[in-house]
């Protein structure tokens, strides 16, 4: 353990979240460990911070009690839900319920990995820990996307998931702000799926200040969002995370600015 700690290149430890990079400097593989309510999203954020990559993330829905924890009175990891009836009771009492998450450990192919290889290693490791194919890596036009493929259903078995950002929508091309475009995308998904998708935490001024004429007919919401991200390029260096709310069963589309890595 001591030698392991001595080999740590970067360690961040808090009560609710842990991230560590373990490995020798140079060409040897690096092991990344995170502990979080959304460990895959957290691992992607770590790779963004470390390498400046922009990889998007979409939550699967969380519906099985074993995937849920109560953080009403505590920080994460909170109080784990023990049964379907307890989950029903907690929901009735308007408790603050969030994904239970856990630990994720994966090894980067090298100290200087390529983005696809690193994200695939991350997803592969998570899927193995869950005994399924919860997430998949999709290569877009200019970004990598980590999308949900399976979720733990109410019965406790893995069920297929149709990623909500695969929803086919039509956005009339016209000049608008990037803010208005994202709002329109959220609205169109919500109407098409009857599941509310809201704009979450976004860089407001940056999006209001960016004009775009992007649109499209019969395209996936993801591809239109990706078009915006690619169009704004490195000037804005944006990425997104789509998080699912356990309590309200709604999605929040969070847009973030990825800082360049020197």
């Amino acid at each position: 353990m001591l030698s392991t700690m001595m080999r740590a290149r970067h360690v961040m430890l808090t009560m609710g979240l842990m991230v560590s990079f373990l490995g020798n400097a140079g060409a040897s593989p690096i092991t990344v460990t995170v502990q979080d309510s959304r460990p895959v999203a957290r691992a992607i954020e770590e790779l963004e911070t470390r390498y400046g990559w922009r990889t998007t993330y979409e939550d699967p829905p969380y519906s099985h009690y074993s995937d849920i924890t109560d953080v009403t009175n505590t920080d994460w990891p909170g109080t784990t839900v023990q049964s379907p009836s307890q989950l029903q009771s907690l929901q009735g009492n308007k408790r603050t319920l969030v994904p239970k998450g856990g630990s994720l450990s994966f090894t980067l192919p090298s100290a200087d990995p390529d983005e696809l290889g690193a994200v695939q290693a991350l997803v592969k490791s998570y899927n193995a820990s869950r005994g399924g194919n919860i997430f998949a890596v999709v290569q877009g036009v200019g970004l990598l996307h980590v999308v949900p493929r399976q979720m733990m259903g109410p019965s406790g078995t893995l069920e297929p998931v149709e990623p909500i950002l695969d929803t086919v929508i039509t956005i009339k091309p016209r000049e608008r702000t990037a803010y208005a475009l994202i709002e329109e995308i959220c609205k169109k998904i919500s109407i098409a799926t009857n599941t509310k998708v809201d704009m979450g935490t976004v860089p407001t001024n940056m999006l209001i200040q960016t004009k775009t004429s992007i649109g499209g007919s019969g395209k996936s919401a993801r591809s239109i969002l990706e078009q915006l991200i690619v169009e704004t390029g490195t000037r804005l260096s944006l990425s997104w995370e789509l998080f699912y709310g356990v309590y309200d069963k709604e999605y929040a589309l969070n847009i973030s600015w990825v800082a360049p890595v020197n």
Partner: protein
Amino acid sequence: MRYSGAYVAVLVAAVTFSLTTLERTARASEAKPAAGSMMGANTILRPPANFSGTLTFNINRYGKRTLLQAWTEYLLPPACTQVSMGEWKPPAANIVTKYCDKNTTSPTMKCGKVTFGTITGKLGNGDCPDTTFTFAAIYYKWEAHNNQSVNASAPPNTVTDTFNARWTTPDKLFREAFTFNINVPVVRPDHETTAFASWPPAVAPRGTWTQTLVPPSSDPTFDFSGECVQEFNPGGPTICTLRATCPDKCWFPATTHPAFLKISGGTWAVGNFDNYTCVFDNTKSAGTNIWGYDYVGRAGGNVTYYRAQSPTLKNTGSCGTTFGQRMEIHAPSDPAGSFTPYGNTNTGNINTLGASETLTTVTSIRAGVPMTETWP
């Protein structure tokens, strides 16, 4: 760079000419005509007959005109008589100086004004020390109360005017050509004031704010319109992991809405509303030194979510977040990407921004000033 000594011109840089070629006016050629500049007027010693040079002056803005050069034609000692004071060309009104105008497509405002005159004095080269001559003088006065002149080669924190003029004599023996670079100090805002503007429905429930840049008291009519201001993150946490230490008190662990902890890095053209390109647009006039809008607040879905989910809001009836914003300004005369902070606490450097909500109201905070409305 500090400029001191009112209206005193300081010859600082390049005086590029050759004293060795075309030295037609050697001291040995007595009783022959020579050209000489006045003592104390940025004297150039014994230039060739067809001198061509660049003179750079760092001067103060406004006030009295600055004497740049004064020349005369005289007979070398022992004659020491004036032949002609010559003349400056082209006429002062026709000299092409730079524009200092935020309207770059149809500019009308010049940076300064060139004038000619006569002045008496001694020769600066030491000839005829007992003789007073009349010199043809060229003057410059900076007039524009702005930083609009663009010059990629200007020294840092200066604004530059440039023009050409030549001094010639009627006997055509002398033709001295000058390029004058006139540097004045760039002026920065002393601070900014902020005022609430509105709650625009398109981005509800965010508040919009307008700001006014306040010039230094020494130059109260200064116009920063056409310059660019940008917000910068002065630091602070970028991620929350524990409630107790998270500045966003609405946030809770594993929320679907990450904590609202920082500004997004917006830019605005001063003098315009809703122009985020840093290029002044005459159709979006906001008034002198006014810029906006700065949108401050959470998205509507964010507020709704926290009203339903935030333990803090449930327990205390309200929750909110604050973070810093450092404003910096870029003048057209500045190098690309160069910004300079202005103001003090809540007048630019550093402003407190934030947002808070109760079950029925939302509050937008800029420069420490809260504005609350009932929403929705």
